[in-house]
């Protein structure tokens, strides 16, 4: 690890947002390191989309503040938005009567950094037909057009809200492969909000889990892989887990003399605690990203 302080593309400080009595965000402290591919996970209504809208200054928080590349989003809205390629969850475009080609030219005019050569390549990669009217596009076609509009100005920050939604499997794979290529060519920080976790798992290097507006976990993939593991242990008849093992538990299931736990902590410490409690550790496995996220979310639901 370098001794330099990490710089963040996105940082929020005690961000809270409520709609009426409903808390959409509750004291959220996001930390997205520059250059990260950060996946924001959570159920519908967990606050993922709201967080993105606050970053764009499309929504004003009730408390706290957000920074994008060190700029306060509430004060520097336009400057911040110029740095961001945003793909909303919605597939609707603002000008349904335009053709795709016309809309691309229209959006290009707003971005001094628009790369026309790259835009032409994106049109090809995503199979966008410039002569088509926006209102006649299917959900998938609309998504593909959004990718052209989002990537062509090579913004330093991408906010993608359910980016693979509406894409067929072939196009989904092509899109994610192109995103990988884009990242290799252009220094970019990406925040992806999704519940299709396995689709973006191989791209992600940071993870945040939102549950009912609260950020219940946030760490790098390496840290997650190291500290959240499933332990399969054999226990004597009638064995009860000691209290100190119950606290950092995410999930537990039991079948006969075998207990399976998802526990947080360094493996050596956890295994030692299990052994001291009289359990024989049979297997320790790191979890796929989706399983880890589910474990965190399940913990939140059970009081």
């Amino acid at each position: 690890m370098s001794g330099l302080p990490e710089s963040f593309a996105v940082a929020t400080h005690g961000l809270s947002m409520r709609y009426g009595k409903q808390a959409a965000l509750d004291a959220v402290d996001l930390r997205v390191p520059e250059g990260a591919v950060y996946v924001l996970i959570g159920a519908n209504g967990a606050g993922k989309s709201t967080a993105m809208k606050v970053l764009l200054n499309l929504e004003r928080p009730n408390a706290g503040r957000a920074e994008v590349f060190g700029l306060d989003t509430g004060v520097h809205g336009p400057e911040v938005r110029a740095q961001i390629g945003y793909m909303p969850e919605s597939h609707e475009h603002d000008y349904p009567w335009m053709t795709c080609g016309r809309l691309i030219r229209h959006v290009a005019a707003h971005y001094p950094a628009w790369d026309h050569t790259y835009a032409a390549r994106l049109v090809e990669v995503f199979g966008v037909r410039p002569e088509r009217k926006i209102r006649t596009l299917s959900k998938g076609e609309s998504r593909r057009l959004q990718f052209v509009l989002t990537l062509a100005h090579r913004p330093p920050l991408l906010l993608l809200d359910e980016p693979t939604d509406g894409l067929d499997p072939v196009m989904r794979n092509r899109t994610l492969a192109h995103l990988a290529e884009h990242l290799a060519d252009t220094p970019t920080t990406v925040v992806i909000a999704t519940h299709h976790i396995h689709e973006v798992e191989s791209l992600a290097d940071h993870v945040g889990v939102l549950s009912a507006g609260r950020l219940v976990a946030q760490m790098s993939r390496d840290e997650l892989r190291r500290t959240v593991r499933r332990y399969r242990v054999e226990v004597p008849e009638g064995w009860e887990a000691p209290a100190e093992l119950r606290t950092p538990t995410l999930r537990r299931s039991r079948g006969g003399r075998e207990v399976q736990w998802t526990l947080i902590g360094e493996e050596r410490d956890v295994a030692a605690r299990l052994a001291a409690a009289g359990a024989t550790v049979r297997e320790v496995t790191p979890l796929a990203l989706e399983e880890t996220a589910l474990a965190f979310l399940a913990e939140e639901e059970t009081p």
Partner: protein
Amino acid sequence: MLVNLDPQDARPLYLQIMDEVRRAVVVGTLRAEDPLPSVRELSAELVVNPRTVSQAYQELEREGVIYVRRGQGTFVSPTFRRGAGERRSLALAVAKRALLEARRNGLSAEELVTMIQKLAAREDE
């Protein structure tokens, strides 16, 4: 070069990529001075973060398996000997996985080894 990543494999992706490159060198599908795909190409092909591929390449370079020629790309190192050492570390990795699976099934190392020998003898017949 063919790189296959196993979605069931819980090890970090950069380690899996490193293993695949090493395997290709050991079995001879990659030879000295053969070019490797660029970070950009391989990350698009595998749909992984380019940083992951970079990390794998940097580690392999540090180990002397591959080297970078500025502006030209990445190549298999001519000094990398695909000798006993590499075969040993491959065997070690395979053995570790087998042993883990045996333990999971409540089998001892001895039972596993005996069965492997029996099986191999049968195949040789």
